[in-house]
């Protein structure tokens, strides 16, 4: 086991990319994730990998398309406004079924917003983002260690399903420093020769990468094929963490940074005698609907805590199917709730539901 390092989330992610065998990174500077491009600009050439500062996020994502289409392990990262610019390219990548890793170090919006952390890109990340019917696997790290771990996982899932994977982090997880350890990793052997555009030898038909299927009959076949893939992803790739749910009467549902704050809030609430647990979705797509539904047999209320105006709470409600009340608490604009603030809100809600 390698030794611990003290790193920023963004740096850990960049180092993980190198260790995961990322062949190419294309990016454009934007706060709060410019460290990624800086780190890779310094380190990638030492490993004979390609790193390039593109002229825009639009160019970055299309460079990713080109390199991924040629069969290379490729990655980009940005923050909210830059990710918005990439949406068209991401839709093409999903349509053309290209594996790649995209990282969004979420800042608060809309518009130019602020450079402070936010979770306002939940809908964009999980419900489409770009045009057309597609899904990305969305991984939500809650620590610097996970910023590193999910790079390996993300690349592997992307290859496994020939689908873009999004790591949805935020400015706080990206900027904070924690201990991180890089585990030994072997890149799975994946044969991409049946589709990667590496130059057509006489021995095979030409490969072409496209998302265009102009005949509706053929386009629908392609859509159904994608849907089949997304179904498989939903069946096999749901990931979540549960803390203190065994005896829980109430449940926090939160991901990423919010989940960390909720852990502290949970400690405080439990000291006050409120038996509350936490369910932290690790994959935001596919979403742990099933587990939430199971927990309705046990808990009296769920509270979704987010750094937005209430986005994931809709998925919690979808999972719960009205069986127990689902409440929401959030802060926006780069402001973050304190654990005490969350506990105060929780207590108010418990009283309200008790009275009613």
């Amino acid at each position, binding site marked *: 086991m390698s030794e611990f390092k*003290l790193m920023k989330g963004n740096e850990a992610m960049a180092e993980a990319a190198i260790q995961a065998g990322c062949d190419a990174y294309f990016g454009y500077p934007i706060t709060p994730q410019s460290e990624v491009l800086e780190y890779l600009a310094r380190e990638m050439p030492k490993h004979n990998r390609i790193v390039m500062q593109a002229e825009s996020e639009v160019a970055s994502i299309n460079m990713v398309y080109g390199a991924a289409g040629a069969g290379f392990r490729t990655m980009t990262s940005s923050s909210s406004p830059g990710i918005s610019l990439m949406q068209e390219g991401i839709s093409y990548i999903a349509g053309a079924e290209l594996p790649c890793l995209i990282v969004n170090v979420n800042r608060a919006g809309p518009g130019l917003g602020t450079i*402070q952390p936010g979770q306002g890109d939940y809908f964009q990340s999980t419900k489409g983002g770009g045009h057309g019917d597609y899904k990305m696997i969305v991984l939500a790290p809650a620590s610097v260690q996970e910023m590193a771990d999910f790079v390996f996982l993300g690349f592997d899932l992307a290859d496994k399903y020939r689908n873009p994977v999004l790591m949805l982090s935020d400015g*706080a997880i990206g900027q904070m420093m*924690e201990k991180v350890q890089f585990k030994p990793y072997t890149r799975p052997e994946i044969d991409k020769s049946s589709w990667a555009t590496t130059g057509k030898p006489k021995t095979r038909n030409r490969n072409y990468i496209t998302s265009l299927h102009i005949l509706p009959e053929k386009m629908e076949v392609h859509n159904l094929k994608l849907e089949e893939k997304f179904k498989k992803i939903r069946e096999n790739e749901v990931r979540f963490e549960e803390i203190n749910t065994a005896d829980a009467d109430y449940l926090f549902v939160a991901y990423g940074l919010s989940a960390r704050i909720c852990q*502290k809030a949970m400690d405080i609430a439990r000291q006050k005698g409120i038996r509350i647990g936490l369910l932290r979705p690790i994959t935001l797509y596919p979403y742990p609907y099933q587990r939430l539904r199971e927990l309705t047999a046990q808990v009296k209320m769920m509270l979704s805590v987010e750094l937005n105006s209430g986005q994931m709470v809709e998925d919690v409600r979808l999972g719960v199917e009205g069986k127990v009340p689902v409440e929401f608490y959030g802060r926006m604009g780069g402001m973050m709730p304190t654990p005490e603030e969350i506990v105060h809100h929780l207590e108010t809600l418990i009283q309200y539901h008790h009275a009613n």
Partner: protein
Amino acid sequence: MNSINDCRKLEELIVAGFGGQGVLSLGMTLAYAGMVENKEISWMPSYGPEMRGGTANCIVILSDNKISSPILSLFDSAIVLNQPSMDKFAPRVKPGGLLLYESGNIFKPSTRTDIDIIGIPATTEALKMKNAKTMNMIMLGAYLQLKPVVQNDSILEALAKVLPEKYHHLLPINRQALELGEALAKEMKTQLV
């Protein structure tokens, strides 16, 4: 003040001041030292668009257990290096906690009586050492004297990691600054008692 044993198990600290005062590197040195001792650590900076000036702060948590929230509203200790930070964070120190401030930059310290408030003339002392930038290390030395959350050796090891190698010729003066801070705090503590 929470006991030495308590602070060694869990310490939640905020360091705040102007950008350029060495706020972030003070916190980072402490975080590194925590890692040297196999503690759980988190270092959460405030970050802004300006590279220099403006206000800066970082929350450092050192713990024997897994750290939950890296963002806090109440702290065991605060090291504040300018007046706005004093005004903002003095009310957020937990009762019985420690508020350490740089007395050259702060003319109006908190009047709270339920916490220990100690001023260190770190800027004056740093200027005497002919290196104003050692101010933050004097503050760190003073803090560690009052709250020995990590061992001295760990801090020295951490310093070597935080300082890029091209600045390693500055290690001795930083060490000196730490020792000076410790001595100053010891003096202040005696006065306090």
